[in-house]
């Protein structure tokens, strides 16, 4: 079984805390790995393990990705993940504050599986996170790696 199931790429520690809290409140106890910028995320996914091979065993069940990230932004992470046959099947849920149409178009063009605008209202935020967990962790079936 995969040790990391939810990969959360988010630079804002408060958003991290709220997202983790919302997942836990919805009774998702799945292990969460938080990466604080795009470079860290790419390093985590494509970095080399101790045997010198890419550390693909670290691939999560679902990747929650913020768009605006330091160093390497979310769109670049998305592009790399979706262009690599080893990571292409990981569902990527873009979780962002941006309602801008061009972000929506761009991320779907790059292959995002879902685009969620983080609501300001925490109850709505809880519901959104709950639905993300339900769908991608429980309902959605993925091909066996």
């Amino acid at each position, binding site marked *: 079984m995969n040790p990391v199931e939810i990969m959360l790429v988010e630079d*804002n520690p*408060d*958003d991290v805390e*709220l997202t983790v*809290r919302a997942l836990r*409140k919805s009774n998702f106890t799945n292990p969460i790995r938080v990466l604080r910028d795009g470079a860290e995320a790419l390093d985590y996914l494509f970095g080399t393990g101790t045997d010198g091979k890419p550390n693909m065993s670290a691939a999560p069940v679902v990747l929650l990705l913020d*768009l*605006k990230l330091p160093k390497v932004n979310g769109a670049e992470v998305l592009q790399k993940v979706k262009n690599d046959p080893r990571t292409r099947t990981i569902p990527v849920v873009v979780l*962002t*504050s*941006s*309602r*801008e*149409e061009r972000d929506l178009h761009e991320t779907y063009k790059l292959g995002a599986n879902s685009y969620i605008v*983080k*609501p*300001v*209202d*925490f*109850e709505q*935020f809880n519901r959104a996170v709950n639905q993300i967990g339900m769908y991608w962790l429980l309902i959605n079936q993925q091909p066996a790696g």
Partner: protein
Amino acid sequence: MTLVLALIAVAALICVILFLGHQLQRLRVALALSDARLDRALQDMRAASAELESFSYTVAHDLRAPLRAIDGFSRALIEDFGGELEPEAARLLGTVRRNSMRMGALMDDLLGFSRLLRQPLHKSRIEPAAIVRRVIEEGAGMAQGRDIAFAIGALPPCEADPALATRVFAELIGNAVKFTAKAPGARIEIGSREQDGRTVYVVADNGTGFDMAFAGKLFGVFQRLHRAEDFDGNGVGLAIAQRIVHRHGGEIWTEAAPDQGAIFSFTLEGRAP
């Protein structure tokens, strides 16, 4: 004699041609200059528009995050320590949350507004009669079972952006529904008249109206003529309607009096030159 006259005529003609040539040259120089100025103005405008875009992006993304934290952590406090909180403490936290949500709504409106200004116009022939019927059907929810008499008069077709024109009717009808909430026998009339060769669309209600002394503020963003506890709203609807009308080259105006209702009139085309 005729030869002399002919010579004079030719000389005069040459003078005129030389003069015209000179004028033409001057015009060309002026034109080139104004072309350059126009280019510069266009560049400035593009820069300003790009700046506005990045500004809205900042508002959308960077200002929402702290707001979410304020609401989220207030909520976490209520969830985790609700039992230990004095009722007054819980009430104060509720006020914090209500305000953060309100600010979120204001930001969404502001963003929607700036997006509207950037959105390109796609004009086609529209049928306002069908638009108005749809707006009323879809808006039935906002009337919340109230008994409102809608009277729809003649609404001739025109050339306009269908989505944006729908928005204008929706804002004005929504406005009328809102401000007739306290009027017994609410009545909303939607119709049109011909004026100076243009179709003027009219939305009139018998609602709470307003004092014409404040009419100048009516179409400003976030401007409100009523207290929040009397009528809710963010004060963007009429600002949006006005910007859409202006983008079509039209005009929008209003006549009202306190407790006498309000009449909004607008055109979706410019004056004939």
